[in-house]
């Protein structure tokens, strides 16, 4: 069966027949996993049809955290949406800020000074490391390693959050980027503290890998489970570590050349099989590449202004037009699409959330697997419900 065929058949409606033929004679068991489920990363429901232990149909139910982000943003000034972007993917507020700032800068034609670009790269890569570490921790938590890997991840995450807090004033909701630059400048003490934290990160990743990569249980539960084929991944618009674990070489940092990523030496890790284990491995390797980028950026960061001299924060009214700004967020391609009618607030504000779009292939990955694997496959997608439902 080709990919196109399966997807058209599935879009026939929720009451469609099972996508996989049941084996036995008995009835199918319908299980609603969620919205209160300990492993659904928030409020999300999966209605699963089971043939014994085997999943034959899966229906995701969204909207339990729909907070009207886009509608609110159309009613407030451009800058007033910046704190709301923090709350999209609440693990990675700084990359959300960057994507939104990038879209508005395109719309208004602003230039970002070199120092601000370096600050953005440093913060984005720190965000990527703490996001990937936490994701792996949660994945292991769902595998039954109750607490311990997550504690290792959060130990490092706290160190990075301390850096965020000392720079931006908030642990999670940083609200730091501005159109045309950044809000406050880095101090040399902050750079020294960051260098110290970054110097400790390779040891953390080594320790993490020593515990997990060769772990018998992890390999048994993850290898060959939840395989996502590259052609389906491309067709469905999957991005980020999910796509690269399927072997598709697509990283916006390399493809789009946004910011100053051209100046850094880094590789894009790719997977071979597209299973959960590859997704785990790609995230570990991305953490290592991020550490490399951080070392280069902390070394080369120039002095200078952090705001575009022409940038206007008050009375900001971009010319009529539209712009789409996208970055490689830790979870995938995060884009903001804005239409301006010349007024102080956007006429249309749309988020392209990587979490939601990566979730669309959940059923394709889960079919035929045991119900216990659904939780793992779901965890390996790496979603945050604030971004899925917005």
């Amino acid at each position: 069966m080709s990919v196109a065929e399966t997807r058209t058949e599935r879009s026939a409606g929720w009451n469609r027949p099972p996508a996989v033929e049941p084996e036995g004679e008995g009835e199918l068991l319908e299980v609603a996993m969620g919205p209160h489920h300990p492993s659904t990363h928030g409020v999300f429901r999966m209605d699963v049809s089971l043939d014994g232990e085997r999943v034959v149909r899966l229906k995701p139910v969204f909207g339990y955290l729909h907070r009207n982000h886009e509608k609110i943003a159309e009613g407030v000034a451009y800058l007033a949406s910046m704190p709301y972007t923090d709350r999209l993917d609440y693990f990675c507020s700084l990359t959300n800020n960057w994507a939104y700032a990038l879209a508005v800068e395109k719309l208004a034609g602003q230039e970002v000074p070199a120092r601000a670009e370096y600050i953005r790269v440093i913060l984005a890569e720190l965000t990527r490391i703490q996001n990937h570490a936490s994701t792996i921790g949660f994945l292991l938590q769902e595998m039954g390693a109750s607490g311990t890997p997550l504690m290792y991840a959060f130990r490092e995450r706290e160190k990075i959050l301390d850096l965020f807090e000392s720079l931006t004033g908030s642990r999670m909701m940083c609200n730091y980027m501005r159109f045309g630059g950044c809000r406050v400048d880095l101090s040399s003490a902050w750079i020294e503290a960051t260098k110290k934290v970054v110097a400790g990160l390779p040891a953390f990743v080594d320790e993490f890998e020593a515990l997990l990569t060769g772990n018998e249980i992890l390999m048994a539960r993850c290898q060959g489970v939840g395989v996502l084929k590259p052609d389906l991944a491309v067709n469905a618009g999957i991005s980020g570590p999910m796509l690269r674990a399927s072997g598709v070489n697509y990283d916006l940092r390399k493809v789009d050349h946004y910011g100053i990523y051209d100046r850094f030496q880094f590789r894009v890790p790719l997977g071979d099989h597209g299973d959960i284990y590859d997704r785990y491995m790609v995230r570990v390797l991305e953490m290592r590449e991020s550490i490399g980028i951080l070392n280069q950026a902390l070394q080369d960061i120039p002095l200078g202004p952090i705001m575009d001299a022409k940038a206007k924060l008050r009375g900001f009214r971009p010319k009529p037009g539209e712009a789409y700004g996208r970055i490689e967020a830790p979870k995938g391609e995060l884009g903001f699409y804005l239409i301006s009618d010349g007024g102080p607030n956007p006429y249309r504000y749309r988020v392209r959330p990587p979490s939601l779009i990566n979730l669309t292939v959940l059923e394709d990955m889960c079919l035929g697997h045991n119900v216990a694997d659904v939780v793992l496959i779901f965890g390996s997608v790496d979603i945050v419900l604030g971004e899925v439902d917005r």
Partner: protein
Amino acid sequence: MVDNELKIELGKQGILVTTIEELYNWGRRSSVWPMQFGLACCAIEMIATTMARYDLARFGAEVFRPSPRQADLMIVSGTVTKKMAPQVVRLYNQMAEPKYVIAMGACAISGGPFKQGYNVLKGIDRYIPVDVHIPGCPPRPEALIQAFMTLQKKIDGQPLTGEGRPRFLDADAQCEFPVPEQGAHDLEPPSNQGVWPVEIQGVGSRERRDIDGRQVSTDH
């Protein structure tokens, strides 16, 4: 009641004097098991609180139970949307007494930054009684610990008989609350009058007046 100084003096001699009430409440407050129940951003800070740095285990509350039947405390950690509110109330009803609620963060208290949103419940205390509110967006882990300590103080101060005794010792007290349903425009009812005495004018019940101030029909 034993005089406090005498109690300390006896304690020095190795004699423990206490009351049933004190002992009972000490036991109750030292093992408050929260429900593993995250809604939004605040849930991440809740998880951070249980991790090594903040270590909620010091307060006897590290055991997060996935099932409401085994939990004593519900931490409403994040935005409650109108789609989620019925499930939150239902989960609360499923918890066994004694049960307590912490409303964590601006969203759980009042809707927070998303208050103007059409799909956001403006505070969970419209439907269930809340014991401790923590402001913040999101509150820091220290704030959640503070809320725990406040809750422990509240449990410590509850007499076992008479006025102000906990609900599970009062046969007439209401332990379950009506679950709201999705109406034509909004949740029905817009609030539970028992816990939220202020009447809320829902969108559906709002009086519409024409330009001269006459009331017009709302049936459309």
